[in-house]
Structure formats: structure tokens, C-alpha cells
């Protein structure tokens, strides 16, 4: 186990913002980022001069990084960061911003992810996604991430005896949760039969195992408890966080994520355990990854996830509410914002201001991130435990 990290004393996480997603947008990532700042300003009264820290994630802002973005949006921060890790970017932004605030390098950091989705964006993003995928993955049928995760899913199902029904239960529960979220792209209920009979995309991955790419933006504020209080913002605290990249390269096919390396650190620092979580917001690009996280973050043992899924309900009113906004599978995947929506939804639940239905008495939430399929597996992982005021 690694050295125990310092606690996040005095750090406040607040003001979750979601700019409603659309399937296709003619606008740019810059427009979506500005829309998130605008919503944030309306909520808090903050203007460009009040933001002295900025942490940004996007796949579609090219050629601009955070540098282009701050000039574009008129910010003058004394601390900034650019997180290129997609699905892991929200947790990573959170922990970087928290340390900046704690150390006094910044007083108020806006963490923001924005991506557009123009009609041909998805194909173009894939074509130049990473060197390894361009050399050694996408030329193999060009199935995109569906094919990569199909190989992971195929191996996971055979190795641990998990059936599609287990994944189906997760997808069906998330859809039920999405129905109360007015922003979710998927608006109709989903039955297990519909899930099971959806068409094959890249066996064993079927249509309803896949997220819907869309445009959108997510943001939240990390600041001091005093600042949050002076702005009148309800705030959550960070109990613990972890991240790990490129873990277990020796596994021929990914059956576990980097969480396994640091899960003990997480729960020890948090001072609680998986059973204490009132809701879990797991990165859900494909249901196999949700299942993998249940094992790797300590909810059940490796190889026992099928039974674990059987025993829980995962809806907002049932046991272990999962991805209560519908997750990416039902609310949509807005590029890197897909790695932020889990953070904003967890925040909303513990702050008592969800987009849809509230998990009863939600005080603690576990958020996980998983990102960047550089070649044959997700490379970046992270997790954080958030706690609302008692």
C-alpha cells in the first residue's frame, strides 16, 4: 500500500452544472464551455475575474488546449490544468483542483468539460484518437471502441461466467433512473427483453450496451469552505480519492482496472467502506466496465459480480442506486463531459439537488472514472468518495 495521502481538509466542492445534451450540435466545444460558464455565473454571480483556477477537459476543442480556452473565454487564472483522460478526467480534475485550493495556489477553481458532436465528429475523433489505436486497433475492422470493448466483454463473460442478462440488469436499472432526469437523451423505459434482443454491434456487444455520443458540457467548482459559504453555495467534502494509470499491462486482456492497486488506500483514507455508500456513480461506457468496478472497488470479489448484480436493484428507490441520472448509457456521452457527469451527479445527490429523483437520505457517494482506450484497454482509472453536509 502506498503512503497515506493527506486529507482534503477545508476543501469544498459545489455548484454542479450540466448544460443539457443534444445528439448533434453545429456549435463548437468553445461554445459549450462558454455555456457551462454562463450557467455557472447565473447560479453564483461569479464573473471571469472571480475565477482564479481553471481545469479543462475536451476531445473536440482542437487545436485549442486549456490555453486557447482561457483566452477564448476571457479568464485570467493563476492556476490551470488540462486533463486529456476522457472518462477519468472528472475525478482527476477534482483531486488536482482540491490540492491547488488546499495549498493556496488558487482560491476558486472551475473544473469544466465540454465537447461538441457534429455529424461527422465521432468518425474523425476515432481516426486520430491515439497512435496505438491508429496503428494496431482501428485498422482491424474499424469498429471503434465497440470492437475493443467487445473483446474485453467476450473474455470477461467467458472467464467469470457472466451472462448478458447481468449487463442487461444494469442497463435496465440505469434507464429507469434516467426517466426522472429531464435532460437524459433516452426517454423511454427499457425492458430486459428489449435489451436482450437489441441488434449485435460487435459480438457480444449489442446496441443497448453502447452509449449515444452527443454534445454537452459539465462543470463544478472546487474552493475553500469559507469561500463556498460566502457565496452561499451548498458544498460537499472530499473524503478520499485515488488514481492509477496503465496498471496490469501483463494481463493479456483487461479483466481489472487500476482501482485494484489503490482500493485499500481509498477506503482507509475515506474511513468508511463500500456498504456505507448511499449511491454509486460509476463510469459506464459499457456495462462490462461497471461490473468490473463493482469487483475492483471492493463491492464484491473478483469473479462474483454476476451474483452481486442479482442481489441488488440499482434503481434510485432500490438498493445501491447506480448512475442515478441514467449514466452515459441512458443520458448520453458528451465526450470528455462523460467523465464529469458522474462527479456532478454524485454532487447533486449528496447536496440534495438532483436533476431527477433524489436518492433518499443520500450523504455519501462513490464516483469512479475510467478513461482513454489508448489501444486495447482503458488506461486511466480514478475514484473519489464525496460526502454532503450532515
Amino acid at each position: 500500500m502506498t503512503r497515506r495521502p493527506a486529507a482534503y481538509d477545508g476543501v469544498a466542492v459545489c455548484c454542479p452544472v450540466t448544460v443539457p445534451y443534444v445528439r448533434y450540435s453545429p456549435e463548437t466545444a468553445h461554445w459549450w464551455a462558454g455555456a457551462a460558464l454562463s450557467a455557472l455565473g447565473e447560479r453564483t454571480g461569479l464573473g471571469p475575474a472571480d475565477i482564479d483556477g481553471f481545469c479543462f477537459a475536451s476531445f473536440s476543442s482542437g487545436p485549442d488546449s486549456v490555453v486557447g480556452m482561457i483566452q477564448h473565454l476571457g479568464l485570467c487564472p493563476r492556476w490551470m490544468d488540462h486533463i486529456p483522460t476522457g472518462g477519468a478526467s472528472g475525478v482527476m480534475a477534482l483531486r488536482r483542483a482540491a490540492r491547488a485550493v488546499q495549498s493556496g495556489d488558487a482560491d476558486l477553481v472551475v473544473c469544466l468539460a465540454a465537447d461538441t458532436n457534429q455529424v461527422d465528429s465521432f468518425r474523425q475523433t476515432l481516426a486520430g484518437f491515439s497512435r496505438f489505436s491508429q496503428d494496431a486497433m482501428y485498422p482491424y475492422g474499424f469498429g471503434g471502441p465497440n470492437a475493443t470493448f467487445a473483446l474485453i466483454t467476450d473474455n470477461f463473460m467467458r472467464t467469470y461466467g457472466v451472462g448478458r442478462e447481468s449487463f442487461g440488469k444494469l442497463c435496465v436499472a440505469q434507464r429507469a433512473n434516467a426517466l426522472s432526469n429531464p435532460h437524459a437523451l433516452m426517454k423511454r423505459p427499457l425492458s430486459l427483453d428489449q435489451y436482450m434482443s437489441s441488434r449485435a454491434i460487435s459480438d457480444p456487444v449489442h446496441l443497448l450496451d453502447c452509449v449515444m455520443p452527443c454534445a454537452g458540457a459539465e462543470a463544478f467548482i472546487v474552493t475553500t469552505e469559507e469561500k463556498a459559504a460566502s457565496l452561499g453555495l451548498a458544498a460537499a467534502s472530499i473524503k478520499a480519492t485515488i488514481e492509477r494509470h496503465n496498471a496490469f499491462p501483463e494481463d493479456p486482456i483487461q479483466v481489472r482496472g487500476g482501482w485494484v492497486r489503490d482500493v485499500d488506500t481509498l477506503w482507509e483514507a475515506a474511513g468508511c467502506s463500500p456498504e456505507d455508500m448511499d449511491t454509486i456513480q460509476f463510469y459506464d461506457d459499457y456495462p462490462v466496465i461497471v461490473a468490473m468496478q463493482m469487483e475492483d472497488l471492493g463491492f464484491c470479489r473478483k469473479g462474483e459480480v454476476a451474483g452481486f448484480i442479482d442481489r441488488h436493484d440499482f434503481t434510485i428507490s432500490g438498493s445501491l442506486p447506480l448512475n442515478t441520472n441514467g449514466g452515459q448509457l441512458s443520458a448520453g456521452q458528451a465526450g470528455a463531459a462523460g467523465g464529469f457527469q458522474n462527479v456532478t451527479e454524485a454532487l447533486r445527490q449528496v447536496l440534495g439537488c438532483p436533476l431527477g429523483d433524489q436518492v433518499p437520505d443520500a450523504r455519501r457517494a462513490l464516483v469512479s472514472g475510467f478513461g482513454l482506450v489508448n489501444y486495447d484497454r482503458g488506461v486511466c482509472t480514478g475514484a473519489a468518495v464525496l460526502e454532503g453536509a450532515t
Partner: protein
Amino acid sequence: MSNPLSPPKRKDPLTPSRLGHVPPRLRSRAAKAMAVRAGQGRFVLQVCEGCSEATYPPRDRCPHCWGELRWADQPQTAVLLAETVVRATTDNFFREHLPWRIGTVQLDAGPTAVAHLHGDVAIGDQVRMRLVLDRGGNPALFALPLKETPHMQDDPQLRVFTSAPKHRRILVTDGRTRLGQDVAQALLAAGAGTVFLGNSDPLLRHDGEEWIASTPNIDMVPLDLTDSRSVSELAGTLGGRVDIIVNTAGYVRPGGVSSGSRLATLQTAMDINAFGLLRLAQSFGPALGARSDDGVNSAAAFVDINSIYAMTGNAGFAGFAASAAARLSLVAGLRGEMASVGIRVASVLCGPIDDAWHQAVPPPKVATSRVAQAVVQVLQDGLEQVCVGDVAEDLAARWQQDPFLTIREENL
């Protein structure tokens, strides 16, 4: 087993041909280095000079110890761990070829890799890996059954990576020579549908006329590579029906640079060997490119039989070697152009051929039938470059080690 490939149906002239898309082409420099070896039929991975670990995908430094990497031949066996059938894609090439089966293999060489799968391999199988070139000229791993299975070459996914002669119509440019006739015979034996044999002067008799007349599926066609009109007229007649071109034409005369040769001889050598290839490419290239994804007998390859002395020059055959060098350079340019439209361009490089013009050259000399076999191999394996015979192999090996020394050796 694979289903044996049926001859294509007669084409409906009113139906548009499928456009010759190629798979995505963007690659790293390391992947391009892998492509060069793939085109030579080698199975290579990068190996670290420090820790000797093999690595994949192509990198620029070792991930274990950060040492320098070099390409090295590797054991071709592997085990298939996982598979999927891709049924949806945003890429135009693969859209036309769905469903497409890929898998994850554990290479005996060490790394795991994603590979295209032959129809006869299943999860848990030991497989034989091949490094192939895709239609865009980029390297790809292909998992084959460990042992030959019935009609293995006819597997639809494998056929995408090869230019196998079966059911294809092939133009062999010089039918008046033993080389052209041996190539025609080998292609027919490999299942070619039709061989068109070029004849630069139909009024002049030549050896092998009886054999040609009595062999089914060979058509003699008028083709004079020194005459632009002759080449374009043939392309006008055959352009849409030629799937592979094998340029067997070659004009060989002894002679030096400062003495022992006439300018006119050198000009003829250039006209046939270099400009002849240029005329062929200009007349037939666009039609080949337009039909590179046209079903069973899609247009597939341009194979040029050339001299290994293209790489070095050659004392005693200086003018001929110069024309060969020009020809090799043109082929390199053509390869780049044709890769973007899905046509493989290959060189078969020979030492002195055992013919009348090499009587004074001591053995070993390469038999025309041996060259013909090499042409078939190039097509069946989808290669870009092979050296045929002892002299060519020896020279290529020396050139690989020290190109300038080899040039000196061949000219002093």
C-alpha cells in the same frame, strides 16, 4: 474449412462498381517500418537491444527498460484468446466487408495483439500468425489455422489482403519470351481465369506459339510497350477486365558506360524497361484503381519483374542496370499512388536470368520457371518485394548491411 471461391458472375454493366476504398491509412513511422518487412513476407516485431523483450504495438522505445528497439523475425505461433464480429463501422472500406471478425491473440513471441481472423480459427486454438499488408499498404496481423485447411486461401477476409490469382484476369506484358510464357503457365496453374499475353509484333514468329495456341484461357493481345498508342489502345479494350498486370518485359544488352555500348541501345533499354512501365501505369493505373474492391475478381496488383542490379549498377551491363534503376524508382512512386486506391505494387528482383543475353555470365543464373513461381508467391501472399535466386538474395543481403560497399563491389 473455407467455402471454395466460385467464379464471379458476369458483370451487369448497369450496376455501378463498388468504389475502391482502402482501410484507414494514417500510421506512425514505426508502423511504416513494419510495413516494409511485411511486404517482404517476414514476421517481425520490435525487440529491445537492452532487455531483449519483444514489444507490440510499434513503439519508439522499449516499455520495459527504455532501450532502443530493432526489428527482428519472431516465432509465428500464437493462441486466440478472445474474438468479436464487427457489425457496425464508420469506415467506408470495412462497411463493404462487414461482418468482419477480429480477435486478441497471445503471441508466443511475448506480447498480445489484435488480429484479423481466418474463418477456420476458434477461441483457444493455436494459430499461425502472418504479417500482411492491407489494401492501403499498411501492416496487419492475420491469424491463420496452424495447419493448412481446405480452400484456406479462399477465406474472404484473407483474400482482402492478398492478390491471389484464382479467378482473376491477368495481363502478362511480354508473351514472346520464355519468361512471359512461364509466368502465364504458373498463373493458370494457380487458378487464374484468363491470361492475356502481350505480343509486340504479331507478324513475327516466336518460340512457344504452339503451346499458347493449344492452351485454354490464354489470349494473345497486341502490346508494344515502346508505343504509347499501342498501350492505350489495349487499355481501352481490356482496361476494365484486367485485374492484375505482370510486367515481364525487359531489354537486356551488355555494355559499359564509357565503352562497349551504343547510345541507341541504352535508349531502347530505357524505352522498354522504364518508359514501358510508365506507359503501362498511365494507361492501366486508373482502371485498376477504380476496380480494387469489385468482388471476387477485383483489380489487385501490378507486379514488375526487374533486375536486382537496379539497386547497385552492374559492371558490364551498365546501361541495362541504369534502366532497371529508373524502373525501380518508378515502381516506388507507383506504389505510393496505387496504395491510396487499393492496388498492391510489387517488384520481383532477379539476378541474371538464364537466357540468351546472359550467355557470357557465369552461373548461378535464375531459371525463368523459378521467377514465375516467385510471381505467384508475391500475388498469393500479397507481398511488395521478393528477391529470386542466389545472386539476387546475396546482393540484397549485402546491400542491407552496407549499400555503398555493395555498389562498389558490383562496379569495380
